[in-house]
């Protein structure tokens, strides 16, 4: 039993750490991978929030002396569906952002120049559109 819990908790920890590391890369592909890792981590975590029970049915019957909590499994299912859809959405938006801006950085440092070009009236060579 102890090994299962150790495995579970370390899996959540490793997945979360990997996810956060990848999100901090600030490029769309690693960020999307990182978000996927984070969603795996949270799915595993949610699954464990009903306590880890081995070899028990998720329904309390008169024959079973114990059961595993079915609600976290339903929550995980919802979370999986949502994160799956979200991953598809973020991939599409990232793709169109890359195709239109030819830049896969997530932070917008160089894409949002301050408009002091116009105020100074000196560097009018490339006016921001």
């Amino acid at each position, binding site marked *: 039993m102890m090994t299962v819990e150790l495995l579970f908790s370390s899996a959540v920890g490793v997945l979360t750490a990997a996810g956060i590391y990848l999100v901090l890369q600030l490029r769309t592909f690693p960020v999307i991978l990182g978000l996927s890792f984070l969603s795996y981590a949270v799915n595993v975590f949610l699954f464990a929030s009903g306590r880890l029970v081995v070899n028990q049915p998720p329904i309390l019957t008169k024959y079973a002396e114990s059961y595993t909590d079915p609600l976290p499994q339903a929550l995980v299912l919802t979370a999986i569906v949502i994160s799956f859809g979200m991953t598809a959405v973020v991939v599409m*938006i990232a793709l*169109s*952002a890359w195709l239109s801006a030819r830049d896969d950085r997530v932070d917008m440092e160089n894409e949002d120049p301050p408009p002091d070009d116009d105020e100074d009236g000196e560097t009018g060579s490339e006016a921001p559109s």
Partner: protein
Amino acid sequence: MNHWIIAPVVLPAVLAPFIIMVIRFHLDLQRIFSIAGTGLLVVISLVLMGQASGGTIEVYELGDWPAPFGIVLVLDRLSALMCLLTAVLAFFVLLYAVGSGWDTRGWHFHALFQFQLMGVMGAFLTGDAFNLFVFFEVLLIASYGLMIHSGGPVRLRAGLQYVIYNLLGSTLFLFALGTLYAVTGTLNMADLAVRVAELPPDQSALLRVGAVLLLLVFCIKAAVLPLHFWLPAAYANAPAPVAALFAIMTKVGAYSILRMYTLVFGPNLTVTEGLISTWLLPAAVITLAVGCIGVLGARRVGRLAAFGAIGSMGTLLIAISVFTAAGSGAALYYLVHSTLATAMLFLVADMVIERRGNDHIACDMRMPQNGLVAAFFFAAAIAMAGMPPLSGFLGKLLVLDATRDAPGWSWIWATILFTSLVMIVGLARAGSLLFWKPFDPSLRETRSDEPEDGDEDAGVVEDAIDTTPQPVAALPFVATGGLLAGLIALTVLAGPAMDYANATAQQLYVPQGYIGAVLGEGSE
């Protein structure tokens, strides 16, 4: 069972697929159905408010499952108020979107708009924490589509940032819910309140972690300071009607804080006593300061409005985070005001951008309808800064009054008063640059991309107009005027509005009523 409660969720949920599947190629029909649906939503919300204003808390059990097992929708004064505010805001924003032609600049604006309303309404009505997460996702998914409506590289990149930030927030939300479920074994808010109150204080470490994680999630939504980074880029680059509608999105975060931390982790609860306001109050004060400084420093009209939104969230959360009935009453009054004012500022900002062809706060060509737009900007700025004629002044006065007994009240008062001045200066600077010094002849030489065909002003002005389609010129003013009328009504009817807000706050601080209504009498 009162079926009106689910109507604000069902109506947009039915209308949106109808718009996508049946009338997707008929923009006129889409506009008619969307406006009619949103108008109907206003009526439904008024009915709900009528039902809730008596003080009864009504519960709608989905699938007729009793409360801790099934999902419930709960209608109390707070939910009814938020629903009505959403519906009214959405109605005027939609009028603006139709009038300014924003809905023609991409696909599925009206369907996404209705899905967004469904999510917001659901979030305000639900009585289940996991269901709150689901409705958050519904409103977020729709907002991703709306955020990148009509495309463009900068908007898509800002949208990507917004999506990623919110996906991280959603992950955090799930971690928080998992933690709470692990401790209490339930996610029904009323049931959570009962279980949390029964928990022995020496076993509450995990619960406190869950409470703070949940607060972080709501603070992301409400753009409280260390977590506000997503807001300026997203709101400034979103299409203007969408940004105006997003004024309610930050309020969803504020609503959730108010709901969860009065009902579940109430101020009298020993295990989380002082935990929330200790963190929330300083964060709100700093949020207010940074928002107002951002207004002063903004060089683009969109960012000006976005930082104004952050500043108003700061004031709102200061009032919430003292967690007294007076504070929450002031917060609710200010919430209604700041939602309308923020939305109005975004719409006026869009009018400026449409007419000038750029969003820089600088001397530029004189725009058409300069005086009319300037008047609207003036009204929006007065509302935003909290100057006397409009309800912002009353709201700030109420907030000041409510924080009189709070610890560190001198800091709060100093911040609110000083940042009001900063915001007035910032808005006045922007307004005078945009409207009073609108023509700088030296600019024409530096602008290589401007066609130099006309020497006289009229020719240049004509070029500026040509860049923007204006199908129905009067409707944007009607929509913005509607929001202004809302602000004026809130000022004139401040007495009844304040009575309702105070009654709402008192209902919030007696959670037994809510728990009893959801779980059946006698279970509290």
